[in-house]
């Protein structure tokens, strides 16, 4: 199918690409925009490695057609750190050893940041519910849950400090 000009807002930047309307968001991010932080583990919607935020909501980019999400704000793992300062969840993943091979990590971070956006003190069950669509083969999930808990507590402390200050 012929390529078509598409415009996206990715990590706050406006990006124009020419791509076939049959391309998935995953393909456009990785191949047209060189945002290779978003991974693929199945391209069938099974593993969650390709999770990105579309309009603030976790979406499996391997199942979304790029052409359909042009009007939405898209956030990928490359957009989590601001001015090279890590998001608390990224920091916690690094410290807790929640990223071993690291291949599933971007997907977990996207699902996890969405959770922390909506729930500042998630229970273990709530963490599991939010991350149930992401598969990890290295960690046994233990350190991933620890990292989400650590990030949540740090974000709460920071929010309290801001409120108090």
């Amino acid at each position: 199918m012929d390529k078509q000009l598409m415009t996206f807002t990715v990590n706050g930047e406006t990006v124009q690409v020419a791509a076939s309307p049959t391309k998935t968001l995953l393909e456009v991010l990785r191949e047209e925009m060189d945002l290779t932080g978003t991974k693929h583990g199945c391209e069938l919607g099974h593993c969650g490695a390709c999770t990105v935020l579309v309009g603030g909501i976790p979406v499996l980019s391997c199942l979304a057609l790029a052409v359909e999400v042009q009007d939405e704000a898209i956030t990928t793992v490359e957009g989590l750190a601001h001015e090279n300062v890590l998001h608390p969840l990224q920091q916690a993943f690094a410290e807790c050893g929640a990223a071993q091979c690291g291949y599933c990590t971007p997907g977990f971070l996207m699902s996890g940041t969405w959770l922390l956006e909506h729930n500042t003190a998630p229970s273990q069950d709530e963490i599991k519910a939010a991350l149930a669509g992401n598969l990890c083969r290295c960690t046994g999930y233990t350190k991933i849950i620890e990292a989400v808990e650590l990030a949540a507590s740090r974000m709460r402390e920071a929010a309290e400090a801001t409120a108090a200050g």
Partner: protein
Amino acid sequence: MLIGKPLAKIDSYAKVTGAARYADDIKLPRMAFGRILRSPHPHARIVRIDTSRARACPGVLDVITGADLPYLYGIMPTTQDEYPFALDKVRYVGDPVAAVCAVDEETAEAALELIDVEYEVLPALLSIDEALAREDIKIHEETRRGNIMKEVHLTFGDMEEGFDEADLVREDTYFFEGTTHAAMEEHACVADCGADGKITLWTSTQTPHYVHREVAKVLQMPLSHLRVIVPPVGGGFGGKCEPFAYDFAACLFARRHGRPIKFTLSREEAFLCHRGRHPVRMILKTGVKQDGTITAVHLQTFLDGGAYASYGLATVYYTGALLTVTYKIPRYQFDGMRLYTNKPACGPKRGHGSTQPRYAFECQLDRIAEQLGLDPAEYRKRIAIEPESTTVNGLRVTSCGLVECVDRVVESSGWRERRHHLPPGRGLGIAISSYVTGAGKAIYWNDMPHSGVIVKVDRGGGVAVLCGSSDIGQGSDTMLATVVAQELGVDISDIRVHAGDTDLTPVDLGSYSSRVTFMAGNAAREAAGKLRAMLLEAAAVLLNTSPDRLDAANRRIYLRDDPINCVSFIEAAQKAEATHGTLSAVGSYTPPRLGGEFKGAGVGISPAYSYTACVAEVSVDPETYDFTVEKLWVAHDCGRALNPTLVAGQIEGSAYMGFGEATLEEQVFRKGLHKTPSLLEYKLPTIYDTPEIVAMHVETMDREGPYGAKEAGEGPLNPVIPAIANAVYDAIGARVESTPITPDKIARAIKEEQRRRVSTPSQPQPQREPAPALATETARVAGASSREVTAS
């Protein structure tokens, strides 16, 4: 002291920002794309291949078939039986037949359909029994007898005497189902070739050195003209330990067209590449005295190897070799056999070959303990092997924290207080295991080191560490950085690790057999130790003292008795460089000569063994027999934990993977077709399924390991599976003797148990699952079906 600190992995920041560039993330100018055509038949002769229609397709650059690379390869030098692309025969559904190179992936994929292949379909052998029974059908013409790829017979001691001495002899049959690695990253590679004919291959592998050797051999080029680079690898678990068709194809296309080419496998292809856990039938006969002392063990294993040898030669030996390193076993007989079948080749998966017999042995010991009226935990401690001993098959055991591991899981799980006081349908089970800390022999036997490290110090205080190792997520780069930073007294952030590049880095055999911390760690320590001596000597001149009075830490070299009196690391480095010239040093590690003098003594030897104990708690629904693993307690003797966070991560990850194999995972086929070639259908545990895992370190200081370290990457998987099996028995009083343990099998086991109780009210009898071998070759085996003999 950096050793023992829970430092973040040095590559974790690249991994949490998406900056880590895996093989499929590589993009080079003019890059073309490759796809592979695979056999749709489990067994067929290729009558004719016509690639002309595909070649004529716009955008297609090239097509290759078996005839383009007609050279045998294989990871084990003595069992090479694979061509990159089938020459005359295909042997499993998924066997590579041809490859297309095109300007984009869609064109390459579409062109696959335009390759015309005429097959003459042959009868397929799809199980151990079929492979044994049908000698008339040969999967490989080269096998001497039937489809037996390898047969092993080893006896240590007088078996007859051993079983005569026993008060109780049990013989049970177990079956361990095949499973696959399912690393999250699908295999990928990029190859590029200059006009000088020199090729660079970036590939997601655990073993760059072995890939380097095999690809150069098949491409008929000097090793010096091929460079293999390992990008970050998205998980391996044993599945990326050898070259694959795409490696050869990418290099050939790159050489022919002088441009880069990328291959990325689909998830289904990753399932078909496999090289995972062998399905193994095991017949295990154990004799014990009244007090539980083992008098003799006879193990027979039948491995369903799949279509090619892969690591199978080692695997079949491994199913026998490591059974002896946990308990005092005075006599031992091992008969192993690996068979070719028309399925994807099996190979090494975390715990390589030792996982299946360990499951069988620990389940059988649970029965023995019950029959002798012994507590299974206490019983294991009573017969545990001792540190600094030699096994009956000649394996040298040095440090051993097995008893402490049992104590830790017993205490933390509340074993003594809770075991017989749990509500109905709930149970506790225990099992233990041991694993190698690096194979004592390379895949190709030679006298050279197993690991080499170069450390370079620059006058600005930076330290570069070069090692051929491959970081697959386990943290080998971080281990190297930690060891070197510790020796030189610098911060870990001062270290840059360059690993897995056959041009720049000295050989390390790869990330398999849990060898990297021990072997590359020792090599790094030696290299850094040489530099440390030079730096201390230079600092001694500056401080007007002798080097033996100095220490190095926090980027300073200081007088041990007067730490204020110091020079900076940079000052010492510059002085040393002025004295000695450019500062670098090499270190290497070669394992000691180990093992007996018999054929096969090379498998199982290791400079050290890790030990693990696991207690599992399960609950079984009395109506549906659906069961839940509630919690796993795992204590692991890793020697010294160089980084407790990373060790815990390995224990947890291993326990998770063992849990998956015990309860969900199976790589199974119907008429040669993979039944579940996707991450949805192949049931691997999600965050919801995975139980709470309590990981504990038992630190023994191994005298030969770097700072006392051993391994943590594989060993902790092994006891989890039998611990769960034994817990299921404790919960419901019936034994499932095959993996995975599923509700339907539990239901059947309970029914059989009830039937047995009605007919014979005495001891429970072992069950067969599946039925014993049917072929004539196994008449001896089948005749010796499960029984229990109580000697008078």
